[in-house]
């Protein structure tokens, strides 16, 4: 497309346009832009043409653009991976759009066929681009900087003067000087052929190869990052476990409260470890307007790696997970678990354990359910199930019955409402441990027919009516919820990211540039020194640097008194002598 329109003024053409030819060649390893003409030969011709297109800068540009465009819908339309309820809600409300989006994969954009196609094409293009560029660069490192163009005056930066010094001396001094400035500098002559250096009329020097190294490193690092990310997605796992103080967890599938994993995950991938929650500590702002704001959340754990590992102590905090192998154990929530003892009609203990309650707000007002599945017999000796609705305020302030006033256990009150009957747990349907299904349960009623409901302080007991037993609130334990995630190859992703940044900085901040110095005897026997500089892109640094080098060289080969002018007319000067 670019070939049909003349280069617009202001949009500088590539340096080759300046007629610099070989001098500007291979100043980068960017692929050659060739005309987007149709291929001429059969299948192989087409394949080659297709490959050329795919690995061209133009198509890379298009694919990058498509990638950013393609990422947009996923940020505006609910995604099933992150928010299933919103997706369901959207489907319910939109009869037409819902199924359409579903078909287009818009509810899971980042794993959809079309999005994958874009980035896979981009990365094929990237690999198809990097491999030849790397070879080309290795070739450039092994060859020598191209010789001086015939007319140095055509270069973006140019300078010249006349000197009494001999040309050989000037060239030698230039060579030393450029090498000292860490240029790769070699003597060069137009007759130089086949890589055999012949002492010629000029010196060619190049610097800034690290730019290319940085650029290649950056693009390779992108591949590493993507591969690591894809690997992580396929093999990841994530699960939650609520643990009471004093209890433990060992990392097997059955121990999790809930568990999600990538498509290629295998239960054998779970890192073997276990840990016990010894103590959970939460401290809160005691006073001031921010009273109640959490200050610290800490869980002290003992963990073991492998079945027989030694127990090690660790403290897990909100932003500081416990890391074991590829697994990370995060502290994600905490709450209270009142210890409940239930006795049946005969006075036998049928239930005696802490029951974790679910926090409802930042002051840990909690609710939940105590389910006595078996062993309980009522006053008549008939087997029944008990369900007790629990509502808990860690800090009860008289007058406010519905919300705790502080997150810590300052004045805990447990409100209990017991029911009896059939919990419905045997129906096979999954049931929340925090809620009672009351369809087959009856509330206990007192003599007046009112539902029994009582506030208990630690140590207090409530009697069930008509000798149906009793419930004791013995005390309160704390629990912490842990999320255990495993995202393999995260280290590779991080390493790739670091290399990418460093490479990018090198690629953008280092200039690759060339300097030529030519010194020949003019017709009048006085040496004419010419210097030219060329950068990959026009940069103020190139003439600046050339000026510095010229200044130093000038000190070693001072200007000769000149008859006509200080600076000879550059259009006349070109070293024709070298042509002979």
């Amino acid at each position, binding site marked *: 497309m670019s070939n049909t329109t003349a280069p617009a003024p202001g949009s500088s053409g590539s340096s080759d346009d300046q007629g610099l030819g070989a001098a500007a060649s291979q100043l980068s390893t960017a692929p050659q832009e060739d005309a987007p003409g149709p291929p001429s030969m059969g299948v192989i011709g087409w394949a080659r043409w297709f490959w050329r297109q795919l690995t061209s800068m133009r198509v890379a540009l298009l694919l990058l653009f498509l990638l950013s465009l393609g990422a947009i819908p996923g940020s505006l339309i609910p995604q099933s991976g992150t928010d299933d309820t919103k997706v369901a809600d959207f489907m319910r409300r939109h009869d037409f759009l819902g199924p359409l989006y579903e078909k287009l994969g818009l509810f899971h954009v980042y794993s959809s066929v079309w999005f994958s196609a874009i980035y896979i094409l981009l990365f094929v293009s990237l690999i198809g681009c990097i491999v030849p560029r790397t070879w080309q660069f290795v070739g450039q490192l092994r060859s020598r900087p191209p010789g001086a163009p015939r007319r140095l005056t055509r270069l973006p930066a140019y300078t010249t003067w006349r000197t009494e010094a001999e040309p050989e001396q000037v060239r030698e001094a230039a060579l030393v000087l450029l090498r000292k400035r860490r240029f790769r500098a070699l003597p060069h002559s137009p007759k130089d052929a086949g890589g055999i250096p012949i002492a010629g009329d000029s010196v060619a020097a190049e610097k800034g190869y690290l730019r290319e190294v940085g650029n290649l490193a950056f693009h390779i690092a992108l591949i590493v990052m993507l591969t690591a990310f894809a690997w992580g997605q396929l093999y990841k796992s994530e699960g939650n476990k609520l643990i009471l103080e004093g209890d433990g967890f060992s990392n097997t599938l059955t121990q999790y409260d809930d568990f999600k994993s990538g498509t290629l995950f295998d239960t054998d991938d779970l890192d073997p470890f276990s840990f016990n929650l010894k103590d959970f500590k939460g401290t809160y702002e005691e006073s001031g307007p921010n009273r109640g704001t959490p200050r610290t959340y800490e869980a002290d754990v003992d963990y073991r790696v492998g079945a027989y590992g030694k127990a090690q102590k660790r403290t897990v905090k909100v932003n500081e997970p416990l890391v074991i192998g590829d697994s990370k154990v995060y502290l994600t929530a905490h709450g209270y678990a009142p210890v409940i003892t239930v006795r049946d009609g005969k006075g036998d203990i049928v239930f005696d354990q802490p029951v974790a309650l679910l926090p409802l707000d930042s002051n840990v007002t909690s609710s939940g359910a105590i389910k006595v599945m078996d062993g309980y017999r009522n006053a008549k000796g008939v087997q029944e199930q008990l369900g007790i609705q629990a509502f808990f305020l860690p800090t009860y302030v008289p007058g406010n019955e519905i919300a705790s006033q502080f997150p810590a256990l300052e004045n805990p009150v447990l409100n209990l409402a017991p029911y009896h009957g059939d919990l419905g747990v045997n129906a096979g349907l999954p049931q929340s441990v925090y809620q009672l299904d009351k369809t087959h349960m009856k509330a206990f009623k007192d003599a007046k027919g009112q539902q029994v409901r009582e506030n208990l302080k630690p140590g207090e007991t409530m009697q069930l009516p008509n000798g149906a037993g009793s419930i004791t609130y013995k005390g309160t334990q704390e629990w912490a919820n842990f999320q255990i995630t495993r995202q393999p190859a995260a280290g590779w992703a991080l390493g790739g990211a670091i290399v990418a940044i460093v490479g990018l900085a090198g690629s953008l901040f280092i200039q690759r540039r060339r300097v030529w110095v030519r010194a020949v005897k003019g017709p009048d026997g006085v040496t004419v020194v010419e210097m030219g500089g060329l950068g990959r892109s026009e940069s103020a640094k190139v003439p600046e640097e050339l000026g510095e080098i010229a200044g130093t060289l000038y000190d070693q080969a001072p200007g000769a008194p000149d008859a006509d002018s*200080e600076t000879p007319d550059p259009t006349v000067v070109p070293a024709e002598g070298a042509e002979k």
Partner: protein
Amino acid sequence: MSALATATDLVHTTTLAAATNENLANISNTLIYSAMAVYTLAFFTYIAEWIFGSRSKVSRTAAALTAKPAGAAGAKAPEVTVKNAGGTAVLERPKVVVRAAAGARDVPDGPGAHGGDVQGDLYGRIAVSLTVVAFLVEFAGVLARALSVQRAPWGNMYEFNLTFSTTAVGVYLVFLALKKDIRWLGLPLVTTVLLDLGLAVTVLYTASDQLVPALHSYWLYIHVSTAILCGAVFYVGAVATILYLFKDSYENKLASGGEPGSFATSVMERLPASASLDKFSYRVNAAVFPLWTFTIIAGAIWAGDAWGRYWGWDPKETWAFITWVAYATYLHARATAGWKGRRAAYIALIAFACFLFNYYGVNIFVSGKHSYAGV
């Protein structure tokens, strides 16, 4: 259940709404309003600079373009220009001759808003001084705000806006201190800063509140502060890009024999050449791109620590990624034949629009894990 829900809301509002230090918060508000007043003064002074500058009738661009008609390149001996301004080193004796690339217009940079007019220049200098004062006052306002909430000043959009505009002005002043010729940026910058602050104090104002525990992490400080810095620098790049597009059209018109209006001539003649603007915006965008890459990675590390996954396509993350790819596309375009110049400039503007959307759009229109900030 519903009674419980309302109670929950109540608890939330009471713990969050209260200011840690009412006094400092009030001082901060006063300082912000004062900064706005000084910015307004600076705004009028920049305008005065442009008005006085219009007295000088310069038309170097036309002269340069007609003296050397485009398209003659390669026909005869190369044209050689000696530039004394800018980065060209002038040695004691050997002079470095700088030649523009073939096909590029060789147009001298304009003298700046003051147009060489002495009085205009004076107003320009006063405007810069006022900008410095306003910057210091605003900076103090942001600092007071930070002290009043006892955390970094970017917990909500009001604070984001304050910090962002302070940083943008800071970047401009740093450029000036480095003797970069960018006083032409003053008027557009101060105009947008006033709009940004106006939006902040009217629509976005939030009484100071605390951060939720997940936000406590030094990665947050790194991530957000570099994000704001990147935004400020990208903004400077975007303004230069827009001016480049205008100036380039102007030069195109002149080169093709057109006659731009007198207002356009007066303004455009005083701006740097389109090539200089283009180069400036490229440098600015390219220089900050690695930092933007770092910002996203720092965010991913933080997300990994706080949420257990380093990348989860949360809307904010997604738009940071889109912005990143858009800027990468821009840098690529600069290296692709046929995409340099105006087309690349359009991509740069799209990229900046993505950044802005991430900043405002996502907070306002999209809900995600990042929306704790509270608009």
